[in-house]
């Protein structure tokens, strides 16, 4: 079994993460911030240490690190919090549904309006022009992906941040595909960064992070017990507890701490270059393979997250992924929870097969994978009745 679906969730996890899960279940079984007994306090201290590590990793104070259940949870908190008073939002047509669905539901309820602008691959000027054309008097925020989960295309974050700063907009970044691969910092001109703990950060599922600019306060998405001020009916005023109602995923958070240590040892630059090298080879070989269509028109370092999506002419992407899975290659084929991306990219009928390697993949696995894709392209066994 060769796993190439790290854009969905990373696999396998580093040994230190597996060990941390074991230790968390065995030794940190208390509910942090709820009681005064040893187990609760020990667990609380451990959670705080992870908060410190995440703060150091992303260059924020520990209290600016909000633990969430996943990136979708973080984005819902960010979007619904920032837009609680209404207004207009600019987003893009490459977004994941974790951005688009909250926007759409708020728009359908008449609470906000939003514009999804096109992203022009390889032409940041055109992309920024689209943002500019979408700007309105009542625009309050920009929410966009750092890197598309379909094409890997990186958006020009620093230029968008500049655009936001000049126009007094709050900038929410979806770093689901880039946290753990590329540097992401609030100091890049961002107000909120949302990320998954279980993708390139190599934590386990059920974890996410929201990094919140100091001084920015949002209505909490979820309200409930926070362990202190129990006689108060209002949520705490301060982060992080304001946004962490209920028992946090202690096992997941402790494992995330081990994952961050592991990432620090490996180095983001090395990770990015390694994964991009695997992707570059896939891109170049598939580009030369008859019957294969790549979604991206180019593949360059620093323009892409490590993702290559493709189709085999005339075949449904899901069917290709199923065939690959039968042969032991695990990839996602379909629409990738990106409602606007595939119509925008012209793949609304087929979807796409997504290759997203991780640090534990190697060139030999890529060779075997490419051989299999070429076999399918040469002798397609499954056909979609499109024609």
């Amino acid at each position, binding site marked *: 079994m060769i796993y190439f679906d790290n854009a969905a969730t990373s696999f396998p996890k580093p040994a230190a993460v597996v060990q941390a899960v074991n230790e968390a279940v065995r030794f940190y079984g208390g509910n*942090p*911030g709820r*009681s*005064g007994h040893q187990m609760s*306090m020990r667990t*609380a*201290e451990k959670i*705080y240490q992870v*908060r*410190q590590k995440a703060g150091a990793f992303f260059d924020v104070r*520990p*209290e600016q690190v909000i633990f969430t259940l996943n990136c979708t949870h973080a984005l819902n908190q960010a979007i619904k919090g920032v837009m609680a008073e209404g207004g207009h939002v600019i987003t893009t047509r490459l977004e994941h549904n974790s951005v688009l669905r909250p926007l759409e539901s708020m728009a359908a309820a008449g609470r906000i309006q939003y514009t999804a602008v096109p992203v022009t691959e390889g032409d940041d000027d055109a992309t920024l022009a689209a943002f500019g054309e979408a700007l309105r008097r009542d625009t309050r925020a920009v929410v966009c992906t750092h890197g598309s989960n379909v094409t890997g295309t990186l958006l020009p974050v620093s230029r968008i941040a500049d655009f936001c700063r000049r126009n007094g907009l709050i900038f929410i970044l979806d770093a689901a595909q880039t946290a753990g691969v590329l540097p992401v910092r609030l100091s890049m001109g961002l107000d909120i960064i949302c990320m998954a703990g279980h993708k390139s950060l190599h934590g386990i599922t059920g974890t996410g992070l929201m990094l919140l600019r100091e001084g920015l306060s949002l209505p909490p998405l979820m309200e409930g017990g*926070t*362990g*202190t*001020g*129990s*006689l*108060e009916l209002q949520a*705490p005023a*301060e982060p*992080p*507890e304001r946004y962490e109602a209920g028992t946090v995923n202690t096992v997941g958070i402790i494992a995330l701490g081990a994952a961050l240590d592991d990432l620090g040892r490996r180095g983001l630059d090395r990770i990015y270059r390694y994964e991009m090298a695997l992707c570059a080879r896939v891109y170049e070989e598939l580009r030369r393979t008859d019957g294969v269509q790549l979604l991206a028109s180019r593949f360059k370092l620093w323009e892409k997250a490590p993702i290559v999506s493709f189709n085999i002419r005339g075949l449904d992407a899901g069917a290709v992924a199923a065939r690959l899975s039968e042969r032991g290659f695990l990839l996602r084929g379909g629409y990738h929870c990106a409602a606007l991306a595939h119509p925008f990219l012209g793949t609304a009928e087929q979807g796409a097969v997504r290759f997203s390697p991780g640090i534990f993949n190697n060139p030999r696995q890529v060779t075997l994978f490419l051989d299999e894709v070429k076999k399918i392209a040469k002798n397609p066994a499954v056909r979609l009745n499109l024609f």
Partner: protein
Amino acid sequence: MKHLLLVSSITYAYKARHLLQQNWIKCGIVRTPEQYTKQGCGYSLVLREDPQRTVDILTRHGIKVLQTVTIPAGAEKS
């Protein structure tokens, strides 16, 4: 004599302890005794050092101390 410095959350309790350690001030973290919490449930730093100096350090670093309670010697629980 011990002093309790009530803070707003477990996160700020650990942040405070970390900061005080860097300032050579030793403190523990306890669940605030119920008789001292107005809002019900909370965490406090417990220390023997001069509380005012400690509060000054914490305040300078953005950590709010909600209340300071001095527990006289003899009234301390073991």
